[in-house]
Structure formats: C-alpha cells, structure tokens
C-alpha cells in the first residue's frame, strides 16, 4: 500500500518531464570538436554565455535542450572559422547584453566603469590635499 502511494507521488513529481522534447541533442551539443585548440576556444566562450532558458547558468553548465542547441551553434561557428568575439556579437544582436557574462562597456553600462575611477580620483585628491597640508604644517612648525 505504502509502496503504491509512494509510486504515485513519485509519478506526480515526474510529470514536468513530459514537458520536455524527446529529440536527440544537436550534433555538437555534447560532442567536443576534434581540434583541441578550437575546442578550448569554444569552451572558454561557452562558459561566458548565459543559457536563455535557465538564466543563472552558462550554456557550458546547463543540460537544458536549448543550452545544447546554443553549444552546437558555438562549436559549428568556431569550426567554420568565426572568432569567439564574432559569435558573442551575433548572440548579443539577438538577445541583448544579457546573454553575455563578459562585462562590456556600452551606452548603459559605462557608469559602472566610470564611477570607480571617479571615486579613486576623488580619494586621491582628498588624500593629497590633507597630507600636503599636514606636511606644510610640519614645515611651518620646524
């Protein structure tokens, strides 16, 4: 009896699996490129691209079918001679900056890079003034 209830409960948990497709993965979803240098290039790129379906994972880390299809795109494009930067641009043109984990300076992100520089300059300015003044005071006293 308990076994039957347990089986039913487990079967219910398995229900969402029905919402997955039953197609085999794309050819290059789980197959590495033959050339180790190209595969290293592809792998490095895949670790910095966001899976659109499972947004907190990179496509290298995700088992979602869509991540597999994205890996297939990356590997076939690398094989066809495209550079990782070109492939990243291709994806950003379709999904926006969000698809890339690599920080990029753009019209909306430049303050993120500018603010730390400004703060450092500000602090340097304040320190110089204070230390300069103190040294000046010491000089006066001597």
């Amino acid at each position, binding site marked *: 009896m308990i076994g039957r209830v347990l089986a039913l409960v487990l079967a219910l948990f398995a229900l969402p699996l029905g919402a997955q497709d039953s197609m085999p993965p794309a050819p290059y979803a789980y197959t590495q490129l033959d050339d180790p240098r190209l595969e290293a290039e592809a792998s490095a790129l895949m670790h910095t691209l966001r899976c659109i379906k499972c947004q907190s994972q990179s496509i290298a880390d995700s088992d979602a079918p869509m991540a597999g*299809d994205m890996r297939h795109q990356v590997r076939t494009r690398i094989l066809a001679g495209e550079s990782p930067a070109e492939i990243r641009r291709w994806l950003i043109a379709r999904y926006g900056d969000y698809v890339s984990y690599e920080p990029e300076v753009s019209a909306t992100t430049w303050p993120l890079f500018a603010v730390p520089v400004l703060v450092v300059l500000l602090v340097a300015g304040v320190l110089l003034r204070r230390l300069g003044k103190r040294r000046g005071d010491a000089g006066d006293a001597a």
Partner: protein
Amino acid sequence: MRSRLYLWVPLALFAFFAGLAAFMLTQEKDQFVESTMIGQPLPAFALKPAYEGLPGAAKADFTGKPRLLNIWASWCLPCIAEAPQLEALKAQGVEIVGIAIRDKPEDVAAFLARHGNPYTRIGSDPISEVQLAIGSSGVPETFVIDAAGTIRYQHIGDIRESDVPKLLAELEKAK
C-alpha cells in the same frame, strides 16, 4: 554643530540603498528575455516540413503581406492553451506560419489532429537554429513579420484572448 550634519550622509545613503534593495525584493522579476531583432529583417532560413501535411517554411514565404510567425512545439503545454486563440486569428484572415522546435513529425501530426491546425506552413527546427537566429527564448512565442520580411513585434508566452486585439493591431501596423 550645523557643520556636523554631513556626517549623516553615509548613513542616509546606506539606508536608501537598503530600502531600495528591500523594495526590489518585493517586485516581480521579469523572467523574459526579449528579442533584440525587432526592426531587423528576418534572417535567411529554409526549414523542411515538420510533417507531411503542410509545406516547410522559409524566409522567402514572408512577402506581400504581414504574417504571424509562431514558434511552438507539440511537447509544449502552453501551446495547447494558445491553440484556440491561433484559430481565432486564423478566422480573422491572419496567415500563421509555424516553426516546430525539436519536434517529431508524428507528434506534430497528433498535436494538430487534437488541437486544430491554424497554420499554412510549418517548418521543422530540430536544433533550435532559427529560434536562436531570431532571438526567441522559448515556446510559445509569436512574431509579427511585415510585408517586406522585417520583424515588427514579439509576443512572449501563450496568446491569451486579451492578446488577440494587440496582435491584430500590430499586423495592421505592419501592412
């Protein structure tokens, strides 16, 4: 004494950001990744028929009048929910081209037999190639493609009854 007031600025800033963080936690997160291909021409593609009942789909099919491009799959549950709305759009004279994502011919045929067939063409995209090329992030999604083959509008998720007028208006605008 008044000059000491600025000492409170950091605390005030901290309180502001803490408050902002607390407020943002209560806001619903937008899970959708929108396509940035709106206003761009449809990328070149030519897909084989998804089953023997209808022809496949290609970029060349999107000329002369605005059409809907429906990204769907037989294994996608919300696609069942939007089937009646696609029928309603078809009844209004809208031409709907389907792209079946990671699907098998027998599953496509069974889905259409059960939930109706609003399509004039269905291309099969077994490796989500065209889906990625147009910046679609899931199923179902519906794009308005104008008479010149340019992507004009993206609807993410299943089409509800309340979305139909908006889609019709976008199709009208795309003429």
